[in-house]
């Protein structure tokens, strides 16, 4: 009786939502007939770094990578980039230039780097004055610190208060971010949410801005991520993506490739005891579309005025688009 009820429920849900997540959800609770599993999407092949895996395997493997690296994520970012990732993120927020009262969703933002920078920028008196804004730009081991916040800056009228919702698929990364927020004394203006970027648990037309930094290349279906971004943004809202990209200059690209494949996995092994995860991370960069192809994809998903800006010889790029 229970089995027939579950199959009945499964048929109803599949008919309505036609979502492969439904299959996985219900297969956790009930035995699913093999026919239902064979709808094609979960068996499709995709890349995990340079490996070929099914889409279902990729989600699990990516989850496992970030669960393994969560504790050392911030340290490794500093080590791999020589601290330059901080400059990239500082510049990213400057480009976003959020005003007070902005509602932001930061997707794949587990440890809170973008969220904390956003709150600091949007809540300070120097808001809008790029030259006077004080970002810590020099890398130093003694400066391994979180941004300083005055809690009074984050209190006040909810409508005029900037707020960031940090969404990530990985619980470990979110808990690291929560810990950092507690450490910095941030207890308002930020919410934490575990969710899938391809199927955000958020109403339409909710946010003023959507950011995703160094996360989209880990998603199985990049087009679905961008479509969801379009859905959850208000009209006039801005999509911004910071991601590793293609280096146009062949000589610089050669040096960058050597550094990526010869040095980064070694650093991963020394500092995080995890060669494989960092090998995946450098391979995944090479699988991501180039600047122009990603720009085209963003336009296809409905965004207008799509532009991109290369940083550090094209090692990373900031893509931006508006929901008009």
């Amino acid at each position, binding site marked *: 009786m229970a089995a027939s009820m579950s199959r009945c429920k499964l048929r109803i849900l599949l008919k309505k939502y036609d979502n492969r997540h439904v299959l996985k959800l219900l297969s956790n609770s009930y035995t699913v007939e093999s026919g239902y599993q064979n709808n094609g999407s979960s068996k499709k092949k995709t890349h995990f770094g340079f490996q070929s895996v099914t889409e279902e395997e990729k989600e699990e493997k990516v989850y496992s990578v970030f669960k393994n690296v969560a504790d050392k994520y911030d340290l490794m970012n500093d080590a791999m980039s020589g601290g330059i990732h901080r400059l990239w993120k500082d510049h990213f927020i400057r480009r976003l230039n959020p005003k007070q009262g902005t509602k932001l969703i930061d997707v794949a933002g587990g440890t809170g780097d973008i969220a904390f920078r956003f709150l600091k920028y949007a809540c300070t008196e120097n808001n809008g004055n790029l030259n006077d804004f004080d970002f810590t730009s020099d890398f130093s*081991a003694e400066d391994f610190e979180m941004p300083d916040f005055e809690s009074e800056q984050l209190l006040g009228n909810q409508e005029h208060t900037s707020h960031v919702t940090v969404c990530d698929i990985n619980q470990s990364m979110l808990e690291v971010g929560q810990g950092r927020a507690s450490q910095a004394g941030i207890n308002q203006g930020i919410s934490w949410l575990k969710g899938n970027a391809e199927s955000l*648990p958020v109403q339409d037309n909710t946010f003023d801005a959507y950011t995703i930094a160094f996360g989209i290349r880990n998603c199985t279906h990049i087009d679905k991520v961008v479509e969801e971004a379009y859905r959850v943004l208000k009209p006039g809202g801005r999509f911004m993506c910071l991601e590793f990209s293609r280096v146009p200059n062949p000589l610089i690209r050669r040096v960058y490739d050597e550094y990526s494949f010869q040095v980064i996995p070694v650093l991963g092994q020394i500092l995080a005891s995890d060669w494989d995860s960092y090998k995946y991370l450098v391979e995944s960069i090479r699988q991501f579309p180039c600047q122009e192809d990603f720009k085209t994809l963003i336009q296809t998903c409905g965004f207008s005025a799509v532009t991109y800006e290369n940083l550090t010889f094209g090692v990373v790029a900031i893509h931006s688009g508006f929901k008009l």
Partner: protein
Amino acid sequence: MALPLTRICRAIIQTTRRSTQLSSLYCTQSSEDRKKQFDKSLLEILVCPLCKEPLRYDEQKNELISDKIGVAYPIVNGIPNLVPQDARVLKESTGS
């Protein structure tokens, strides 16, 4: 070229030491914060990721319920988990 490399290596080692201290502090913090409360203001924007309908907060079971399709999403350490494959299908006989 050698000088910046030496500085970077020294910085990495110092950062590792500092990070180890901070990591142990984080462990203490996260164990203390295990009973973090769910931020109810999120209910204004959250929907079921499958059917995109509003969710109901069950404070007793600490779950978010999608009455439309009959699934429950857990809240872990105050963080709502709205990943579909982590949800629990509600039994037909009971509403919660």
